[in-house]
């Protein structure tokens, strides 16, 4: 359907008049849309960042650390090394002795490293650090490793990555449930707002029907009103979320953990996604709210 510019202007104006006429309900609608989208925004930024970090980790930490049991002879250690080397999917491996491990540990502690000097006995085990051809094959390789005797424990980053992804998934599921509830509430409130406009315009609509206005000509102003309510809520939420994310990003990168910032999505990259998601959802919720109301209260 091609809409004339004049017609669109008329409908847009009717939409604005409707919003202004029920200022109170309009404000309530805009607020609920904005609140729902803000919560969605928090979830989206969390999930996107966790996904990003997990992806980065996957590429950078393709190692598996194999801790050996205590009291093995040098020969036994070498044999284990040979056995490990024959497992498919392993690119290379290097031995890390108890002493090396402790040294690394000390370095990691930096200035407080001297505290470790007081240890009577080195508590760290000997280990092999295995580099994999492909992180995806980690599970299969680890499975093979458990058949090798003399191994105490296997640590690999896939665990960490999987955990991260699991957290992301959890947040996403909880988020979806929350969003669904909030979207339904927003739709309910918008449809009630539209109902008020419908009541105010009952006579006009009645006349329009009798003089032969098309059904869509009658419906559009209400749908536009709903979409405007959603859009205003979306813009409001975008401003808030953008500000909040920028602040969180700055805080993390300057105060908490600088390295993390390289894994985080830049606020300038986040903004366009947020805008698109919010505008589409805001307008969608608004339009749906109107349609629900029109179906119930407007027989055209």
């Amino acid at each position, binding site marked *: 359907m091609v809409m004339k510019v*004049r017609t669109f202007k008329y409908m847009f104006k009717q939409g604005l008049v409707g919003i202004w006429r029920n200022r109170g309900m309009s404000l309530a609608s805009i607020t609920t849309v904005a609140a729902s989208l803000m919560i969605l925004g928090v979830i989206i930024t969390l999930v996107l960042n966790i996904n990003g970090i997990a992806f980065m980790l996957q590429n950078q930490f393709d190692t598996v650390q194999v801790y050996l049991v205590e009291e093995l002879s040098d020969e036994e250690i070498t044999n284990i090394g040979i056995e490990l080397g024959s497992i498919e999917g392993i690119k290379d491996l290097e031995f890390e002795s108890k002493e090396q491990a402790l040294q690394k540990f000390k370095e990691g502690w930096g200035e407080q490293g001297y505290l470790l000097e007081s240890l009577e006995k080195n508590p760290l085990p000997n280990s092999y650090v295995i580099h994999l051809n492909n992180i995806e094959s980690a599970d299969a390789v680890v499975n093979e490793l458990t058949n090798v005797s003399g191994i105490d424990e296997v640590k690999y980053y896939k665990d960490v990555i999987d955990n991260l992804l699991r957290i992301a998934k959890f947040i996403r599921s909880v988020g979806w449930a929350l969003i669904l509830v909030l979207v339904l509430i927003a739709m309910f409130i918008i449809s009630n707002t539209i109902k008020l406009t419908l009541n105010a315009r009952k006579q006009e609509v009645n006349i329009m*029907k009798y003089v032969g206005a098309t059904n869509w000509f009658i419906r559009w102003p209400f749908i536009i009103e709903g979409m405007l309510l959603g859009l205003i809520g979306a813009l409001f939420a975008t401003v808030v979320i953008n500000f909040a994310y920028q602040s969180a990003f700055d805080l993390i990168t300057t105060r908490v953990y600088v390295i993390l910032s390289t894994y985080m999505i830049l606020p300038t990259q986040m903004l366009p996604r947020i805008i698109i998601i919010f505008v589409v959802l805001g307008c969608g919720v608004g339009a749906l709210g109107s349609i629900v109301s029109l179906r119930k209260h407007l027989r055209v």
Partner: protein
Amino acid sequence: MSKCNGQELIKLIEFQNVTKIYDKGVQALTNINLKIDKGEFVFLVGASGAGKSTFIKLLLKEQDPTNGTIYINNQNVGDISRRKIPHFRRGISVVFQDFRLLPNKTVFENVAFAMEVIEASPKEIRRQVPMILSMVGLSERASQYPHELSGGERQRVSIARAIVNNPSILIADEPTGNLDPETAWEIMKVLKSINRRGTTILMATHAKDIVDVMQQRVIALEKGRIVRDEQRGAYGHES
């Protein structure tokens, strides 16, 4: 039932064995057969509940008949899909007893509204509305609001709105019901002049004196049946 004045008249409205029974079992119209030609002026009379409202609702396709067929402009109304109803309604307009004007619009805007909602161009609106307003004698009132007008003037605005899109049929549902006798006659003059321009008029009314004086075709309904259909008729035979 066509008038024989040498010209071939087009059957504008035709009811064939039309019966309407509402969901609750109320039989509003029973076996109605009639033809109305283009350019006729027809009174529809009968007591409240005789079926006048149902008759009008069927014409406007607000209701569908339970049985029978209605033709308007040689088109079977039953074949019109819901989507096409708005376009169908542009050919049949209605004037109500209670005027139904928009209080926050001027006389001009009220009439223009009917053109705006069918997406007429501003140019057409500027040309057509003053013409129609002068036809109903309201040129001077164009910029006034409904509450500043008398009842008769309001009804003329509503008539102007009804005919501004040039419908072929004008249905007037008790158009003089809220007006004093003198004003009622003003309205009848306006309707008659519209009729002279070729618009078919169907007027449902209780106004016995108007029907008797106008000497037009009268269709009388009683308990959902046509009991009388006369050219140059009167409201009722007795009393």
